[in-house]
């Protein structure tokens, strides 16, 4: 099954994976090779066992998320999520921080598909170290909503401060969403009342006329 990614993006991804694989640890290399497999079973077993491979596999896996084969791309994302879930387990703080650091680097990736996926992965394990780089994406029209959601989810004062700071610079229509996040975090926001109950979508469908009853 082929995706509809541009050939340029595919070329970049292929080069990135080749470079990463050339310098990767044997464990990572084995994982990447299995994720690239054409065999469903091999890919599936590979992503399931990715947790222990750790932070170093994240960048090459992210590149594989742009693979032309959607099954390979999907397996790569699942492998990344597995690494995040494994690193986030209790009493594994150093692993979590290593994974977080690699994910933060990927927030600058050219592809919004990867930036969006990484934001949500980070939202599960991010410490204060991730707040500034995620906040920077509030100015990125393609993923700003995901960045807002992540900041809403990440506990602590720094994420609240980042949302408050964003209220000053954000485009006017985006301020309503940020205000909602702040309220969800227990903050008082006087302006920008919720729009959640305001209908916006009308239909072309007509009611049945009485005569046709």
């Amino acid at each position, binding site marked *: 099954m082929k995706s*509809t990614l541009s050939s340029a993006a595919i070329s970049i991804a292929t080069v990135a994976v080749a470079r990463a694989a050339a310098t990767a640890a044997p464990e990572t290399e084995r994982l990447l090779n299995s994720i690239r497999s054409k065999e469903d079973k091999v890919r599936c077993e590979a992503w399931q066992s990715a947790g222990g491979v750790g932070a170093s596999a994240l960048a090459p896996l992210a590149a594989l998320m742009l693979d032309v084969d959607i099954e390979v791309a999907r397996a790569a994302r699942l492998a990344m999520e597995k690494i995040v879930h494994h690193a986030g387990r209790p009493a594994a703080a150093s692993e979590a921080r290593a994974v977080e650091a690699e994910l933060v680097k990927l927030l600058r990736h050219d592809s919004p598909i990867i930036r969006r996926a990484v934001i949500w992965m980070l939202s599960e394990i991010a410490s204060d170290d991730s707040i500034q780089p995620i906040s920077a994406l509030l100015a990125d029209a393609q993923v700003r909503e995901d960045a807002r*959601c992540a900041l*809403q*989810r990440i506990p602590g004062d720094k994420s609240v401060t980042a949302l408050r700071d964003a209220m000053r610079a954000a485009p006017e229509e985006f301020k*309503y969403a940020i205000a909602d996040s702040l309220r969800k975090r227990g903050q008082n926001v006087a302006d920008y009342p*919720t729009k959640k109950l305001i209908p916006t979508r009308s239909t072309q469908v007509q009611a049945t006329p*009485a005569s046709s009853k």
Partner: protein
Amino acid sequence: MRYKNFRSISRRRFLGASAAALGGFTLLPSGVLAQPGRPGANDRIVVAHIGVGGMGNVHLSNMLQYQREGKVRIAAVCDVDESRLRAAVKTAGAGVEPYRDYRYILQRKDIDAVLIATPDHWHGVQTVHACESGKHVYVEKPSSVTIEEGNAMVAAARANKVAVQVGAQGRTGKGAWYTCRAIRNGIVGQVRSVECWHYANPVDDKPVPDSDPPASLDWDMWLGPLPWRRFNARYCPGVFRWFLESGGGQIRDRGAHQFSTILWCMNADKQTSFTVQAKGTPPSKGLWDCPVDMEVVYQFKDPDWTLVWGQPGNKVGKTEFGQVFRGANGSLILEWEGAYRGAEPDAINFKLPPGGQEVYRTAEYEDFNMNHKADWFKSIREGHLRPAVDIEIAHHTATLCILGNISYILGRKLVWDGQNQRVVGDEQANRLLSRPQRYPYVL
């Protein structure tokens, strides 16, 4: 019949007089019950349908029956798929207004109650919004996809004094009732374990690339609270069930039915703390990500018992899914959720022992779907606003389903503190109890 001079009589007198005058069948508008003194449009409850595919069509059919019996009036239908909406408005008949955006319905003061049968990721948001708009709610199970949503739904129902019934019909079903009274009164002795069996989640064996949505579908509204992504034909309709973030698989679909009935039989609605450990086999391909096979073990304390979700599990009954209660003196099977299927003869023939505990069940209709709605209407009519599957009960059930999936996703055992609604000692798991929603589709 129209009511006049509402301000001149008390709510209690009004309720009593109405019930007496109309033989107890009349349903009172929510505006009257929620805000004494505010006149309703007439003596029928006015309902609207949000989501009219799948179970939404069953609800519409039920309300048409209630309408023929003079108990409700259908005012509106809503769907984000115009082809479904067109079919529903035709079925509903003249005078029923179609909407794509459910919020138009919530703005209408003449509508007392809504029936929500949208994909699961919409249940929490739409229920909270309906409660905040003063509407009574019948919402499909599972009640929510996150713990945060479930808590918000309970809070919204209580704050706005409306009845929220969740569509797990077991607790008004005859089969579950026979089983419940037998189990609670010792037919198998003290129950130590309840084991469920259920067939597998399907594999997406025909994956397709992302594409443009069909012209009739408002994809943005379908996604609603979920993070934005391009349309894929394997998301909908119906197959949303096989995504962990939306439908949550069999454990959150049928599990919401079975767990609701089991907690009822075990008298365990207040046993909100437990441990949960899940394992499963993920699909090897395709867009759907719910595990094909799954085993989830829940341990409850004081009294001690174990609940096992088996997919496929150990099928000891005759039908596709069900559960077996195992006690010190034997075992008792219940097929399905005890509504669509009946009880075992041993349960039906069970005689309450002296001093035994009888169990209440609304029994107005033989049809279990109609009867479950009758129970909802009864809670409105009587003003107690606590139907058989009140949102608080349903939230406890959904919590079992949701945490089973989180344990599977994280690959570890979780210790759930129901009192504080937190996972003990697992920060990542606690972050997964909520999923911030895409604006403006927010709680």
